[in-house]
């Protein structure tokens, strides 16, 4: 199973203490990696189809990027063989521009049927892997809610989009969707582990799908409750703005 990492901070921050550990703990995932971040509100993605960890060493470029990338939001993904990708372009994160933002997306899961989803908007993500279709689906839903109601709630629109997606394409989802200011993380299987770092460590939130977390600190487990649709976390800077079940979302 692939793995996800995300960081949200109040100021630009470097994830050099966590990204190499993330790579090491995900070393069973041998089918590529990607790191996404923002600079001046533009999204940048570095990715590779090579193993993130080989010969007891983290991929050199991954290590260097971990040291150099600084951003208020950083997302990373390490791919497993099941993810279907064999080329650099197949690896996450993916990026799309809509609703006046550039968005980054990483996903872990298994969903039947969504590979056939045909987006109604441009641009399309020109790779034949289903996580790209999940991202397009979410983009299409958000645009349909917010394009003509610019003062609508973005959070409530994300909840509605997830509900529709789960109804139309049931499956296992764990994803991070982020623009330059806000990060949405949703899971309806596995768990996310969350750590709030103090000011001396950048006043940041660190999130990962690695079940034991990435350090000896007390990581908080965010797991979907039984008989619910899944958990949604909304983060801005170092703050959890919202954490709740999408079925009972008071966001609507």
């Amino acid at each position: 199973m692939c793995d996800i990492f995300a960081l949200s901070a109040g100021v630009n921050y470097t994830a050099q203490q966590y990204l190499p550990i993330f790579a090491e703990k995900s070393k069973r995932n041998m089918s590529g990696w990607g790191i996404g971040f923002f600079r001046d509100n533009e999204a940048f993605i570095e990715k590779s189809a090579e193993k993130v960890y080989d010969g007891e060493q983290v991929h050199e470029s991954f290590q260097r990027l971990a040291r150099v990338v600084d951003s208020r939001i950083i997302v990373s993904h390490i791919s497993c063989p099941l993810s279907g990708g064999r080329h650099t372009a197949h690896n996450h994160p993916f990026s799309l521009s809509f609703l006046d933002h550039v968005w980054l997306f990483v996903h872990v899961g298994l969903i039947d049927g969504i590979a056939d989803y045909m987006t109604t908007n441009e641009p399309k993500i020109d790779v034949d892997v289903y996580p790209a279709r999940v991202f397009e689906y979410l983009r299409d839903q958000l645009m349909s809610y917010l394009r003509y109601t610019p003062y609508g709630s973005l959070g409530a629109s994300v909840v509605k989009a997830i509900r529709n997606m789960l109804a139309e394409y049931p499956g296992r989802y764990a994803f991070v969707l982020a623009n330059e200011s806000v990060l949405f993380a949703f899971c309806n299987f596995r768990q996310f582990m969350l750590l709030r770092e103090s000011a001396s460590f950048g006043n940041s939130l660190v999130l990962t799908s690695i079940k034991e977390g990435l350090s000896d600190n007390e990581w908080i487990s965010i797991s979907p409750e039984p008989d619910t649709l899944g958990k949604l976390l909304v983060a801005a800077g170092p703050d959890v703005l919202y954490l709740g079940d999408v079925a009972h979302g008071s966001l609507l």
Partner: protein
Amino acid sequence: MCDLFALSAATNYSAPRSLPIFAAKAGRNLDGWGIGFFRKNRAYVEKSADRAYHEGRFHDSFQRLARVVSSKFIVAHVRLRTSGPIDECHAHPFILQFREQDWIFAHNGKAPAIEAYRSDKFRLEDAVSDSARTFEYLLDGIAARDTESGDAPSLFRAVADTSRRLVEEYPGNYNYLLTNGSVLFAFSNHRQFLLLKGSKQLEGGLLLTTLEHGLSEESWTRFAKEKESAGVLMAILGSDILLKENL
């Protein structure tokens, strides 16, 4: 009645057009002004007990600051005293530290009941107004929710629940702006907020004011509490309303 202004944007912005218009349109507020903003996550406030606008002229400092201040969040206030003396330390916005962050707060309304409130943790020592006590009450409430909620408290939920309790325990008129540099909370249980995104005449980002007709001839959108609700709360990030709830 005092008035409030905020600009929220994804990148640092100045408000050289909208801030002077705000001061002029809110010219009946005679008792001071203040502008709050963030630089590298530290909060700064420049304020004065003088008029921001008088007989066709802007306060010199107000006008210069409007041109110079650059931040993702700018919060401004012009004051018509209803509580506390007229001096610089009673002008808004106020700053307090909490959760290793700086918080900026500005308030418009009248809530004499809360003047008796005393916080154990947060003290705006020199200010004796209902607004100062409201700020302390809100941070106390959020801190209490942090403790109750344990591991991953939701900040929006904490602000929403505290605001609802504020109105119940200390009935009054509250419009407030509260920001920690990552998110701007806007709460209203009287009058309204007017919002405008993507202005062609003023600045970009999201503009917000309590002034009834907005700050330009453009199509401002009005937000006010629904009947039977304790107030409306919005969490604003960049130019988006991220979360909104009638409490």
